[in-house]
């Protein structure tokens, strides 16, 4: 498999409590306080890759850095450090503002959570889908119209709806506009940030099946961010589990949900509602640790983890590989399936 996206040692830190600008730094220098501010480690040294045609799920609780990571690698914000390679091109070097007009912009596109909020309310569906085509493909007039209509049909959007504004469309139709806008410029990687979170189950199914069909037709890769593990399990080939800025587990979706290795993933899988009570009462107690200047030698999950020993307080567990899977836990061996075949 050829690697499409390669993210290496990516970090995004946000300074907190006080201005980060030059004037604030100047003030701090002369008022005798510490020059550098405490930082939120939103994404901390994350590495992973996505192969061509692969669907990768990214799961984790709110505040774990999913959205920051996704925004950084779609180049809407800049990374603090690390590299994002799409094919052979390095994307992390250009500032986000410059990248917006870069020729690689069309290669990564994003579908946002709620199309009702992410589509300009003063744009008709047509204008919303046409906008990236005008800016990135420089299409005009008849060719533009033809392209918009082709994409709308591909996304199952009736052409008579193209003249409508977002508020005149139903939730499912808006989701289709969001998807059509993103795939109009034929991206190689489509990043989907909870595309079905605002939808009812009946409509969710249609949108998920649409995404699967589009993927087969155009051979795009997906990075699918969601907190609905039932959906991730069905749509994704591989899944990444994030906890407080770090990837704690990665592997084939079926294997991870069948047999989670990291204690956090185990709790996450146990918490997924299933219509028949499973009796699995593995629960997380307490609140996550603070992401502000965390101790680099303490496991981020320490304190909520049912395993938690002294070793977890003194050494940060590294992401270790077991066959096709990766886990960041000192005790991963204990959770491996009895047979040595970790699929």
């Amino acid at each position, binding site marked *: 498999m050829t690697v499409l996206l390669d993210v290496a040692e990516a970090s995004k830190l946000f300074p907190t409590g006080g201005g980060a600008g030059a004037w604030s730094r100047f003030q701090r220098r002369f008022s005798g306080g510490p020059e550098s501010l405490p930082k939120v480690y939103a994404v901390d040294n994350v590495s992973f890759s996505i192969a061509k045609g692969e669907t990768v799920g990214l799961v984790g609780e709110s505040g774990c850095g999913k959205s920051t990571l996704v925004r950084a690698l779609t180049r809407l914000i800049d990374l603090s450090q690390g590299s994002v390679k799409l094919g052979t091109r390095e994307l992390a070097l250009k500032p986000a503002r410059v990248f917006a007009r870069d020729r690689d912009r069309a290669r990564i596109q994003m579908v946002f959570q709620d199309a009702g909020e992410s589509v300009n309310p003063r744009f008709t569906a047509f204008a919303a889908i046409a906008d990236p085509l005008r800016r990135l493909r420089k299409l005009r007039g008849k060719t533009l119209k033809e392209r918009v209509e082709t994409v709308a049909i591909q996304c199952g959007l009736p052409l008579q709806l193209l003249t409508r504004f977002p508020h005149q469309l139903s939730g499912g139709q808006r989701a289709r506009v969001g998807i059509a806008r993103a795939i109009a410029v034929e991206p190689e990687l489509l990043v989907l940030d909870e595309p079905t979170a605002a939808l009812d*189950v009946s409509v969710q*199914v249609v949108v998920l099946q649409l995404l699967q069909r589009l993927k087969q037709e155009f051979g795009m890769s997906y990075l699918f961010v969601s907190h*609905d593990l*039932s959906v991730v399990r*069905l749509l994704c080939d591989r899944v990444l589990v994030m906890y407080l800025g770090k990837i704690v587990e990665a592997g084939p979706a079926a294997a991870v949900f069948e047999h989670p290795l990291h204690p956090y993933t185990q709790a996450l899988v146990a918490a*997924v*509602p*299933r219509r*028949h009570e499973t009796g699995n009462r593995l629960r997380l107690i307490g609140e996550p640790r603070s992401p502000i200047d965390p101790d680099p030698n303490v496991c981020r999950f320490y304190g909520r983890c049912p395993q938690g020993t002294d070793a977890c307080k003194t050494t940060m567990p590294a992401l270790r590989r077991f066959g096709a899977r990766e886990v960041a836990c000192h005790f991963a061996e204990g959770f491996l399936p009895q047979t040595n075949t970790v699929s």
Partner: protein
Amino acid sequence: MMGAPALSVEGLSVEFRTRSGVVRALDNVSFSVAKGETVALVGESGSGKSVTAYAVMGILDPAGRIGAGRAMLGDLDLVAATPKELANVRGRSIAMIFQNPRTALNPIRPVGKQIGDVLMRHGHVSRRAAPAHAVEMLRAVGITDPARRAKAYPFEMSGGMCQRIMIAIALAAKPSLLIADEPTTGLDVTTQAVIMDLINDLAKELGMATIFITHDLALAGQRSARIVVMHAGHVVENAPTADLFANPRHPYTAELIAATPDTAASLDELAAIPGSLPDLRRTDLPPCRYSERCPRKIAGCAQPLPHAPPDAAHIAACWNPLPDRTQRAMPAATVSAA
């Protein structure tokens, strides 16, 4: 159904007068909750789940009007009750947990005080004893360091903690009926599991009846003894949970189950529900509001919906229900369209 019902809703109809016409949000909704039982109201957005709860609590929007029906809480009809009677019942006998804990809590009042307010009004607790009792309530809902947290404001807490505060407020006066309106929407799954455990455990401990409103059929299946499925302001099916999943009779229920992804093995197994909710402002709504989307529509669907015997365990409001897959020992389950 077991025992005397804690709440019995009979033929409840609610309409909203809007500029563009009258919205018939609820039509002839009936169900009951036995003491100590958890009943889930399930449906897509716009199906009337929350309106049912608001009507029972007497907190409908001023544009809403209850056209017909009763909601009996013991001997008291909540629909006909005076504002004063309602004020004495709310918080004391019925309590409600709202969807978004951040907006439902008072943002400029410490949470301990908010719990104390309920205790003083409904729990026979003196002003002096209220703070200590409030701290006890916080401890009961699993807040660590409750004495310090009692002085905190809602914005200082995470969503999960705010929901615990809401639960503490709702349960402060030990109500006999709890209405939980999507209590975990917007929370993480791990937090959702913990909050649902808390609600279930406290309900069991206090012998409380619970109405649990959700759009997640899997969650309802996991957490309730009985499920009431709503569609466009109608109750389409009402059955014990295991029976509903094993033997859905109403076509809409079957489609809803087929669209829920929790047990599916692949995406192709899921089936979308064609069509959308009818416009409830229409004056020519058919008797069965699902009939225009229904794959099993027959000529008989044009007549008024069937009347189910009030003591049936499994009710489906349908003239052409799916065949009963449990033909054996369940005579009460087959009455739906008889």
